[in-house]
Structures are given as C-alpha cells and as structure tokens.
C-alpha cells in the first residue's frame, strides 16, 4: 500500500524529473554546441589579466541602466569571467542577464545560458512555478524516497523464491515485473542518493534565508542601521583583500552589496579550494562595500556545507564524461523502473476489475 500510493502520487512528476534531467546531465556540452557557453580567446603568451573594475565597467556599459549582482570565475575556464546584471541588486533571479568576458582582453564573449537547456532546467527545478513549484517537487522527491524504501521491504516477499537477476518471459506482465525488480534493485543506491540530494537542493533558498537571518546577521552586527554604501570600493582592491584572508583558495564569485548572498553593506567574496570536494565548500569573506576592507570571514554552517556537497552528487558532473554517460544510463534505467511500476499497477487494477483471473499466472508474494 505504501509502495503503491507513494509511487503513484509521485510518478508523473518523477517521470518529468527523470526525462528533463537526462539532457541536463550534458547541459555544458549542449550549451557549447548551441552557442550558449562562450569560450575565451586563446591567451597570448605573457598576456596580463585586465583589472576586474574594467570588466565590471564593460559589463555595465553593455547593459545600460542595470546593476551588477555577481561576478563569477569559471572553474574550468579561468579566463572566463561571467557577470550577472539585473534591474536591481535584489531583482528576480529569472530577470538576471549573464554575459561572459575575457579575463585577458575584457572583451564581451556573449550571453551565458538561456536557450533550450534553460527551459529544461526550469521544468526540472520548479516547473516555472517559482519557490512553491520547487518545494512541491521537493515533496514529490520525498515521496519517491518513501517509494524506494517501501520497495526494498516488498522486494523480500516478491523475490524470495527467485534468483537475483531472474528475467522470465512467461507473460508481458511477468517480464515487466522482473525488469522492475532487477532495475530497481541495481539502481537503488544511486537513485536514493540522487533523489535525496535533489530534495536537499529544493531547500536551498530556505537554508540561505536561515544563514542570512542567523550567521550573516551576526557577522554584520556592527553595521546594523547604517545606510547602504554610496560609492562602491574598487573590486580589485576588494578581491585582493579577500585573497589575503584565504591565501590558499581561489575566488569563486563575488556578491555585490544588497544581493541575496550578502548584507546590504558588504561585498561577499566566496572562496573555493581546488579539489573536487573543496571546490564545492565555499568560504565567504565579507568586505566593507565602501572601503573594501575585510569585516569578517567564517566557514559556512554545516547545513550549507551539506547543500554544497550534495550538488555534485545530484548533477553527476564531478567525474568526467564517462561518469556523465553512466549517470544518463542509470537515469534511463530509473525511467524504466517508474514506467514498469505504473504499467504493473494499471494491469493489476484492470485484472481486479474484470475478475478475469483464469489462466494468468499471478504475481503474489510467495509465502
């Protein structure tokens, strides 16, 4: 009962998530192919990096009337700098414009993201329904976790007389029943991890709000009641100070004062390490928006670290192309588990309705 209903309610949405998730595994490759992932020019020998202030000015000139929200350094393409502009610092994330700039020439390289992959992403993340849509999909993901766990319990009575990997073809129903069990059994750990990390990701905004209300509020206490900075400090100076505070780390991105990732007075420079794990564990350095001096730097709380580490485990983007291909195959196998589960339920219902039991081998738990 638990298995049937937790699966049925979440089935349609899980199919949507699995199907939209499939191309998203390769979104870097697809974006590159379609021209939504601009690449910097090959750097001339001895090329000198332009000042970040210059790149910020170029970005603002490119989108007049807008303000900068974030500047991000591409992890895989160090010469790729991505500027986020929006109508105001705390503007709607969907209204942000992302453009890439070359770190050595400050030349605009083109828009980042957008295109068909953005549609898949929106369907996958919130079905174009904003935060409620996101939390709803989180709830569906949680139901799917319940379905997986209840499936483990049911696995015993249904397969105790069968050898692991049995694939019979007595009837269509039994064939799909065996595939449901086999694919469900071999993908279970992966499915649990990808589903659980997906559910954690739906809570990202909630966790960020928690951090701002507690840890961040505590860090910026001395600034309480002060008006937002009028003239922003030099970005180069600000970044220099942040690097001195975390000398063995690199800049991941800088959040401008008033954006969701920082206070209204501070630049927040998020630093990252250089291993697959430490590159996810960001460390924020808060710097005065007017002077660029360091105000405070503290590690993120455990729940935000958990969120950051859960992301690669959901995306499958941390082990090269072979891991992405395996991710896609496991995703397809999960689609078959969900599809065959739905089929088995429909067939069972039809059989109960018609009472035409004769001659059909039944799929009852064996005692």
């Amino acid at each position: 009962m638990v298995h049937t209903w937790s699966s049925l309610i979440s089935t349609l949405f899980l199919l949507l998530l699995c199907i939209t998730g499939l191309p998203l595994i390769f979104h870097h490759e697809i974006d590159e192919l379609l021209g939504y992932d601009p690449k910097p020019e090959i750097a001339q020998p001895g090329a000198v990096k332009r000042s970040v202030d210059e790149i910020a000015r170029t970005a603002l000139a490119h989108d007049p009337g807008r303000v900068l929200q974030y500047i991000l350094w591409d992890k895989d393409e160090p010469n790729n700098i991505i500027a986020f502009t929006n109508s105001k610092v705390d503007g709607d994330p969907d209204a942000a414009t992302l453009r890439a700039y070359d770190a050595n020439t400050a030349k605009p390289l083109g828009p980042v993201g957008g295109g068909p992959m953005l549609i898949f992403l929106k369907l996958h993340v919130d079905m174009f329904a904003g935060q409620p849509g996101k939390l709803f999909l989180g709830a569906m993901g949680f139901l799917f976790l319940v379905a997986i766990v209840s499936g483990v319990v049911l696995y015993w009575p249904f397969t105790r007389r069968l050898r692991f990997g049995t694939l019979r073809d007595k009837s269509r129903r039994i064939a799909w029943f065996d595939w449901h069990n086999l694919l469900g059994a071999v993908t279970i750990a992966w499915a649990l991890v990808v589903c659980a990390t997906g559910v954690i990701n739906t809570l990202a905004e909630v966790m960020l709000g928690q951090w701002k209300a507690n840890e961040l509020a505590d860090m910026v206490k001395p600034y309480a009641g002060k008006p937002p900075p009028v003239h922003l400090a030099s970005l180069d100076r600000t970044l220099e100070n942040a690097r001195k505070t975390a000398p063995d780390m690199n800049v991941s991105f800088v959040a401008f004062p008033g954006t969701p990732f920082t206070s209204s007075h501070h630049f927040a420079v998020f630093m990252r390490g250089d291993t697959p794990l430490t590159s996810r564990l960001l460390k924020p350095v808060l710097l005065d928006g007017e002077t660029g001096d360091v105000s405070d730097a503290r590690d993120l709380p455990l729940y935000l670290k958990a969120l950051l580490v859960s992301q690669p485990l959901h995306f499958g983007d941390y082990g090269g192309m072979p891991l992405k291909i395996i991710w896609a195959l496991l995703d397809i196998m999960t689609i078959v588990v969900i599809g065959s589960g739905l089929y088995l339920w429909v067939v069972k219902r039809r059989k109960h309705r018609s009472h035409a039991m004769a001659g059909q081998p039944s799929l009852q738990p064996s005692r």
Partner: protein
Amino acid sequence: MTDTRKSRSSGDWWTVYGGPLLIGVLSVAGLLSALLYEGVGRYFSWLALGAPVALTAWFYARRRKSKA
C-alpha cells in the same frame, strides 16, 4: 514475511538482499570516490557505478543465451 528462518530453497536473507546490497555498497563507494580522490577515485567511480549497468546487461545476455 518477517519469518527469515525458512529453508534455503524458499529464500533466506542473503540470497534475496545479498546481490542488491553488494551493488548498493559499490555504488555508494563509486559516488564518493570521485568526490574525495582525484584521478584514481574517478577511475574507480566509473567501474563502481558502471557495475549496475554492466550487471543488467549481463543478466539480459544470459537470458537470451538460455533461450537460444
């Protein structure tokens, strides 16, 4: 259903859950290895997470062969 003390022929705990459990442990090890160890961890993750796919293919091939 909770009676696990039946004879071997009607299935015991290990024959039912052993295979899936081993694959599960291997999968989790693969998921973590690429995150924690560059290089070697990456190669291990391909093998460990490729195992469920390979095993499924093997079961499928075995059935086809036994039918022929």
